[in-house]
């Protein structure tokens, strides 16, 4: 009886110590789930979700403060991936945060630009170049299409233009065939 108790107590002690050591030795820095959510978010940093950037929104989702359907640039596809990752029910996009739009980039009308630098300060990814009283321009490949530069412009010279499809970005369409009567049969 006593041996059994001692053995069990000894085992518990050994396992407890091992677990305790392992929890210190293999401690995971940061929150991996936030990283995973952040990897799904489109990184436009537009703030339409109500948080100042994609990472804060990811943190809020991980903490259960925000819902998964607040990201318009991520769209339905993004919500689906988030629901898969987090095991939550899929929900349609919350329209109060905005609607899904085709990918666009900001374009500065250089004839109107007065060089006030307000858009440069607003751009979350430093995609606008220019200096005070110098013409500004958007570096297209870096622009995420967040629209944050549109509102601050005092002369409304920034517009959002959808990115045109090029031969490099063109995608094969999903094969869909119209169902119609066989033309050979019709003639016979």
């Amino acid at each position, binding site marked *: 009886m006593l041996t059994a108790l001692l053995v069990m107590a000894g085992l518990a002690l050994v396992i407890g110590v091992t677990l305790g050591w392992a929890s210190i030795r293999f401690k995971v820095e940061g929150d991996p789930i936030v990283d995973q959510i952040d990897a799904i978010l489109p990184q436009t940093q537009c703030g339409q979700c109500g948080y100042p950037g994609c*990472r804060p929104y990811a943190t809020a989702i991980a903490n259960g403060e925000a819902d998964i359907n607040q990201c318009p640039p991520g769209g339905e596809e993004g919500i689906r991936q988030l629901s898969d990752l987090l095991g939550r029910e899929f929900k349609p996009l919350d329209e109060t945060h905005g609607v899904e739009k085709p990918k666009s980039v900001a374009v500065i009308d250089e004839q109107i630009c007065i060089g006030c630098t307000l858009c440069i300060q607003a751009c979350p990814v430093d995609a606008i170049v220019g200096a005070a009283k110098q013409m500004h321009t958007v570096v297209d490949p870096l622009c995420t299409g967040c629209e944050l530069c549109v509102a601050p412009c005092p002369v409304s010279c920034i517009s959002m233009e959808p990115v045109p499809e090029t031969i490099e970005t063109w995608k094969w369409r999903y094969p869909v065939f119209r169902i119609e009567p066989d033309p050979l049969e019709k003639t016979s």
Partner: protein
Amino acid sequence: MIERLFRFRGGVQPATHKDDSVVAPIAQAPLPKRLYVPLRPNTRAKARLIVEPGQKVLKGECIGEADGVLGTACHAPTSGTVVEIVRHAMPHPSDLPVACVVIEPDGEDRWIERQPFHCVCASSRQVVLDYLRDSGIVGLGGAAFPSHIKIGTQREVDTLILNGAECEPWITSDDRLMREQADEIMRGASLLAELTGAKRILIGIEDNKAEAIAAMREAATKVHPVSQVVAVPTLYPAGGEKQLIRVLTGIEIPHGKLGAEFGIRCFNVGTARAVHRAIDLGEPLISRVVTLTGNVEQPGNFEVLIGTPIEDLLPLVKPKAGTDKYLHGGPMMGFALPDLSAPVVKGTNCIIAGSPDLFPPPKPELPCIRCGACSQACPVDLQPLELYWFARAKNFGKAQEYHLFDCIECGCCAYVCPSHIPLVDYYRFAKSEIWAREREHNEADQARERFEFRNYRIEREKSEKAAKLAARAAETKAKLAAKAAAEGADADKAAEPDPKKALIEAAMKRAQEQKEKSAPKNTENLPDSVKSEIAEIDKRRKPLEAFDEPDNGASAGEENK
């Protein structure tokens, strides 16, 4: 000698239809009214424009420099004038326009000064590769992959394979080329062997091309005795790179690997000829052999300048009535041309006029019955039906797990499918969708990095500014304290100035000094007459100011400034 041939799994044997055009010798296609030379040989490689509208160019003159990793140069196919640079369709299922140089030929066809590239062996490898890049040499089998990159990978090369299989139905351009230009092909092959360091050359030709085999054998013994011309069984797709390697050497290239990793390089016969012409004759790649066949009266093979609009070629073969579409490439892997004004590009090997009799419209797609016929036909050991389910359900991760990217889009699976499912269309859809996601993912990563760096920079600037201000405040404080200590001996303690007040005073004094400094001083070097004029005006202004002052001092003050 090769003792035995191997065979690859799967494959199909569609009707070849090669007899129509194979009898026609290669003829020179006439000069079109205008040439549209695209600045890219395929969708990925690019060239940078170096000519401008109105410029006269000679045949073979470079009009676009290689740009980027996969870039190759492009050249004027004939002498003439660059009329304009436009966005024009190129043969591509998307029908999207690409930048093209429009050249109006002057009819003289005058060559630029051609200089053979001497001593391949003496020059360093990179110099030769750069020369090939600047000669615009790309694979002429259809994909137009830059040859200098294919040669360039620094690995031990044992075997060079020349691909003369030409397994797709209807196409006869390589067949005719081998019959007529076997010597040039073999010279190119020996150059390629020298460049890659290959010890042996194998030339694989399907056994339904007896004359081509004979011609190549003759040339091979003459030019490069170590080379061997091998007749391979006629089975589609014997001309696929991995399939031909398997048949000739028995090496099975695993999933996700390239022939290059097993000491084998594979080039099309047309590419070998282009390499020979570039190095031995100094001619860049400006034309290629194109088969025009299908529902036409006089099918034939033509040496066509790159940039010739396809619609200008069609009268040469007289399409018959009932032609409803034109295929670019073969019927198995090609696509229907959306726009006939598109030019011939370096990857154009065949144009087929299609009629409902030759190519009946696709039958309605029926549900997959999992019969497994596609798996038996697949030459790369994939499970097409599984891939189909995953692509259809947009389950791309799973499709990649089943090696979607090993699919060579040969069309064997769709050819044998009893349910008429356009399987290849699903794979192409899935592949391009995956590429698009990859691009988006990379863009998102870049945006995240830039966003984080911006936040870091703003924080850094803030702390730097705060540190600077704090340092300055401390400095002034110390100065004042020292001053106070010096004066403190005789001054009363109560009269000691408040350090804050002193700071403000100092700041105001500085501001005043700066203001004076920045005040306009353009009245100093004026001639006396102007000075006296100003003085007169000032005199007149004084009473007015005195009048203004009582009711609005502020505005008068501003005017004074």
